Structures are given as C-alpha cells and as structure tokens.
C-alpha cells in the first residue's frame, strides 16, 4: 500500500501555537478527511505539506518525494484548492488555461474546458472575467484547474465552505470519480462534518496542534456511539470504553467506542455518534 502523503513527526512553532509531532498518511486510492476546530492546525498542516510554510522538524513526502528538496517535481502531481479563489478577479478562464498550461507538464487544456463545461460554466467562460462568477462558480473553476493536469493528489483546504449543498454534492461526485483511479488520493480539510461523513475513507482529527484521532471513518461510525443516561445510572457504567463525556444538565452524554457490542441496560439509550459528536466529546475528554 503506497502512500501519496507521508507525514512523520511534523513540528512547527508559531508565537502562540505549534504543530506538535503530527504524523499521518494519505494512502493511494483514499480520501482522507481532516477535521478540527478553527485554529486547531488544519491549515498550518496543509501549508507545511505544500511548503507554503516551512516545517521546523519532521519529514513529509509526496508520492515518495521529499516535499522540500524535491518540492517542484513533487508538485507537478498535486492539485490544490484553497477556500478563496487564487486567481485575480479580472483574469479570464482562457488566460488561466495558458498560465497553468505553461507551468504544469501534464496540463490538459481540452480536459480543463471539458470540466468547466461539465460544471455548467461554458457560457461564463466565453463571456467574462472571474469577477462575474459567483462563489460556487469560482470554486468549481479552481477545482477544474486543480484537476486539469491529471494530478495524483488533490489537496483542498476548506474549499467547500460557503457553498450550498447542491454544489457540494456535485463536488463530492467529482471526488469519487477522481478516486476511481486507485493511484489517486484526496486530502481535504473541512469543518462541514457532513461532507466528511459522506466522502471520507479515513478521518484524521487534529486538536490544538496534535493528532487526536486517526481511523477508518466507517469503522469509527460503526463502533462509536452516544450513550445517554441519568447520573445515577452513569455510576454503573464501565468506563473502559468511554472516550469522552459531558453533563448536559439533565443527565450524562458519553462517547463510547464499542457500540456494536454494548448491551444497554435499563435507563440507558445508545445511539449512533456523528462525526460532530465524536469531535466534541473527544475534545471534552473523560
């Protein structure tokens, strides 16, 4: 199993924040959902991966290449989408095509415009500058540009924020199509946990600069559960499988990791846990 991204012991220090020994992989053929609250370190990690910000310690390889010493070569196979469109408002799609076409070796002009057509942007492309594009259209264009050089790795940082569900669904479809080639991977960070719930194969959860959870998403959702009961009953619960809890004021809400095997006693309910639940209660801790 090859990894398209391998991060080992990534450390980066800022005045008020640091990435502390971050390690995780993005295997080929998979979608890794990268979650965490604002300020937890998602964007910092992604910047370190792309060498927009230089790491202090640790190693990062992209498709086997060191992301610093071999950066330019490695990035030929990487497509990037940020949360704001990266092109100036007064540029036009054909200009972007020419710019990137002379930068990426594998740039596929026909595919770029085909993608734009598929996104319903052909008219816009013909007529105007990016200024006339809505936010969703700009994002689609950025995505088309990121895919047009047939990369092996797609990195998105909060790229779907501020988009309506219809557009997000279209984008999800594109992701799944991209992953159809098992040499390709996607790393996408998002605080829209429903997107992560739908799309990801793996979930990596970062909190205050540290990786707190890294697991297969479906296994996580299958095994984690939300236990709810009153305070008295809570005393009788075996805490070995409790990953986090909080007192709601009306009772106890706890995250357990053995939902499939857990036999709730009386006065207890066990439900599925959403990614949000898992995030919130893992942070709260036991």
């Amino acid at each position, binding site marked *: 199993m090859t990894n398209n991204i391998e991060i080992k012991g990534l450390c980066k220090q800022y005045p008020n924040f640091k990435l502390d020994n971050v390690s995780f992989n993005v295997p080929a053929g998979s979608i890794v959902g990268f979650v965490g609250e604002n300020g937890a370190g998602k964007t910092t990690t992604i910047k370190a991966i792309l060498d927009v910000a230089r790491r202090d310690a640790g190693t990062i390889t992209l498709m086997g290449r060191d992301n610093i010493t071999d950066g330019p070569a490695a990035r030929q196979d990487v497509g990037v989408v940020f949360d704001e469109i990266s092109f100036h408002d007064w540029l036009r799609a054909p200009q972007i095509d020419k710019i990137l076409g002379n930068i990426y070796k594998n740039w596929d002009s026909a595919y770029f415009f085909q993608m734009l057509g598929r996104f319903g942007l052909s008219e816009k492309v013909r007529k105007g500058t990016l200024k006339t594009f809505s936010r969703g259209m700009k994002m689609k264009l950025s995505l088309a540009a990121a895919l047009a050089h047939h990369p092996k790795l797609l990195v998105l940082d909060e790229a779907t924020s501020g988009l309506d569900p219809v557009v997000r669904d279209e984008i999800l479809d594109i992701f799944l199509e991209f*992953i*159809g080639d098992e040499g390709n991977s996607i790393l996408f960070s998002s605080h829209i946990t429903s997107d992560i719930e739908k799309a990801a194969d793996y979930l990596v959860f970062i909190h205050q600069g540290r990786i707190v959870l890294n697991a*297969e998403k*479906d296994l996580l959702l299958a095994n984690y559960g939300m236990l709810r009961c009153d305070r008295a009953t809570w005393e009788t619960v075996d805490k070995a499988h409790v990953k986090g809890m909080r007192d709601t004021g009306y009772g106890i809400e706890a995250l357990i990791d053995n*939902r499939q095997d857990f036999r709730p006693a009386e006065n207890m309910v066990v439900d599925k846990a959403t990614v949000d639940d898992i995030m919130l209660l893992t942070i709260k801790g036991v």
Partner: protein
Amino acid sequence: MHTVYILYIAYIYDIRLFDSEALMNILISNSDGRPIYEQITAQVKSQILGGQLASGDALPSIRALARDLRISVITTKRAYEDLERDGFIETIPGKGSFVASKNPEFLREERLRVAEGHLAKAVDVAKTSGITQDELAELLALLYQSEG
C-alpha cells in the same frame, strides 16, 4: 456462419458475451445500527441464496460500488472480502468479482452449519452457567426481533 465463429471465439477465450452486470439491490439504511459492510454482505448473501443473483453473475468493482453508493472504498472492499471468505463470491485478479459457482442450496447448507456452530457455543455457555433451554430460546426470539 459469422455468429458461429463469434461464439467459438467466445468459448475459447472465455469471454462472457451475455453477461450483464448483476442487478444487485443494495439499500443502506441509516437507522440500521450495523456497520455498512455488514448490511452489504447480508443483502448480497440473501440475494444469492434467494436466487436473484445467479452463479457467475459479475459484481461491480469495489470502486464502482463505492462510488455508486457513495460510501468508502474500504467498506466495499471489506464487504467483498467477507463475502469471499464465506464462499459466496470469488474474485479473479484482473477480471473482477463474480457470484460463486456453487448452487444456493449448497451455500444455504454451509450457512446452516456455521449457525449451528455458533448455537453450539451458546448452548455450551448456557449449560455451564445454569441457563435453561427456555431462557435461551427466549433470548433467541428477542435477538430475531431486534436485529435489522
């Protein structure tokens, strides 16, 4: 004459001419507490046993299935692995996965044997802990009701 030639070639090269991809019905339920891969294996098994899927029918690739159902590839892979382990499908490298060429009756018997094995263990536990047969039967009834 031409048709005969084509059929002959197909026979030689084992090209499946009249294979359409199996029309599987997979419904993943949110309210089902079981892991998704279990839901898939359960539904595929029952369709094979029920005859809706016939021996030799081609299954979609794990990636195609993941994409269509919009679930993780890891899950479809796990489902197919379990199905293969239990003898319901076979995967031929380079070609894909197909419903195993055993008839449903035979498969059903195998499944019965597996269930019997599990029940034997339960009976064992019951006997050594003073649980009566009636109590066990009650548990059995409860379990049949609760699972999706």
